[in-house]
């Protein structure tokens, strides 16, 4: 038991050092580096709202916030999974020489992206306040889709990092996949335009959209979605996590033969 607790303590320290490293590497340890990583999505938001406000702005209140919510969540998903994909291979020098659980390297990479996400989230709420949206107690529930998204990212990361060890071209395939996923995420358009068609249903098969939808319900409509919708959210996150864990468990011993 004591050994077990020591192990956790040990890995905790190792993990925090890895997160520090990954975060510094990403932002080149400069305030400007962090700033840049937030300016890019804000600029993207500016351009998109300028263009699409003409199309959708009339039919929707707070269109910029609507789009920001979608972009915020989707970018987090794409960035974190993209980084996570290479976590095993980019740490191969350590993994082949040091005995440590390999998932630590993945989660560390995801954490570095999460810090960036949280900073952008702060800006998002500054926008929310600037648009004179009243913040109520219901806003606490914003944390729910974020946790679900995090679990989904870990699950996806487990799948991708395992695949990437074996097949390097997964990188390009995943790029195409995320591009398609983006258009199926209703970031800048309203799902209502597909109402009645099969597309509207298909979009709900996309967990990233489901979480964005949840966030929008709270921020734009001040409503907490139905209880069943929560189960739906949790189901997606756990389902992908389960697949990821299964792949990791089944193939993780083989990583060493490949990297």
């Amino acid at each position: 038991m004591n050994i077990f607790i020591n192990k956790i303590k040990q890995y905790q320290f190792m993990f925090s050092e890895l997160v520090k490293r990954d975060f510094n590497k990403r932002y080149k340890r400069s305030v400007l580096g962090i700033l840049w990583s937030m300016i890019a999505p804000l600029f993207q938001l500016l351009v998109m709202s300028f263009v699409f406000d003409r199309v959708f702005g009339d039919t929707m209140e707070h269109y910029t916030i609507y789009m920001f919510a979608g972009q915020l969540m989707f970018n987090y998903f794409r960035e974190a999974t993209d980084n996570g994909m290479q976590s095993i291979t980019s740490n191969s020098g350590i993994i082949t020489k040091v005995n440590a659980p390999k998932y630590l390297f993945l989660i560390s990479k995801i954490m570095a992206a999460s810090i960036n996400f949280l900073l952008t989230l702060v800006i998002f709420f500054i926008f929310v306040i600037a648009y004179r949206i009243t913040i109520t107690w219901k806003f606490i529930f914003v944390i729910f889709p974020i946790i679900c998204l995090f679990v989904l990212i870990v699950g996806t990361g487990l799948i991708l990092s395992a695949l990437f060890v074996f097949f390097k071209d997964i990188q390009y395939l995943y790029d195409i996949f995320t591009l398609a996923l983006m258009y199926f995420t209703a970031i800048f358009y309203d799902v209502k335009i597909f109402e009645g068609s099969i597309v509207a249903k298909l979009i709900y098969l996309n967990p990233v959209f489901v979480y964005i939808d949840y966030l929008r319900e709270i921020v734009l409509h001040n409503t907490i979605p139905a209880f069943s919708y929560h189960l739906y959210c949790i189901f997606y996150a756990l389902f992908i996590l389960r697949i990821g864990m299964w792949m990791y468990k089944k193939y993780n011993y083989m990583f060493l033969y490949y990297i």
Partner: protein
Amino acid sequence: MNMIEVDHVSVTYILGDIKELSLKEFFIRKLHGEVITKEFKALDDITFHVKKGELLGIIGSNGSGKSTILKVLSNIMPASAGTVKVNGVVAPLLELTAGFDDEMTVKENVYLRGALLGYTKKFIEDKYDEIIDFAEIRDFEDVAFRKLSSGMKSKIAFSLASFVKPDILILDEVLSVGDISFKAKSEQRMKELFDSGVTTILVSHAIEQIREMCTKVLWLEKGHMRGYGETQQMCDEYEAYMRGEHA
């Protein structure tokens, strides 16, 4: 008491197509049943036991499986068959500079690499000055690691690793580093470590070192046990074999 029990251990690597295939090709070939995998036995039926306080040397020519057996003992790589029993805390020092990050400062690297070596945060905080002073790089604490000379890098890496307090020490040719004066210092440090009653497994190509230090020797050749026993006899046989090989 046996600190290490290795019984009939084999490690099989997978070679062949699968390593170079893209995902697309993999599926196409899988459909046609054309994925060819070859297996390669890096270790084949290895058995040995190491008692407490013993110093086992592992010798053999390149590609004989020496590093693989160390990875198996360190629990980095699983054995494909057989059992490995290890009683106690293992410190694998397979490559001293593994985990050092070029962009980070020396100080940050001490913490990162220390964590990977299994040190606690408190331990590093307490020993930090000692580590830096032993490596003689006090003036370079806040310099990016990549700016150090390779000698300095190996000094700090050695210094940091030499604070391990394991039951079992696993070494892959990392006994002494640096210039002459540092070599003497690092050898002294290793002697202290061996004398503390630690059980050691050492891979080396320096036969003289093996003769001098080891209590037993395991000789591997192409993944097989070529010999296992008394140090001088094993080293004599190995040297005779190597001379014959190159004659």
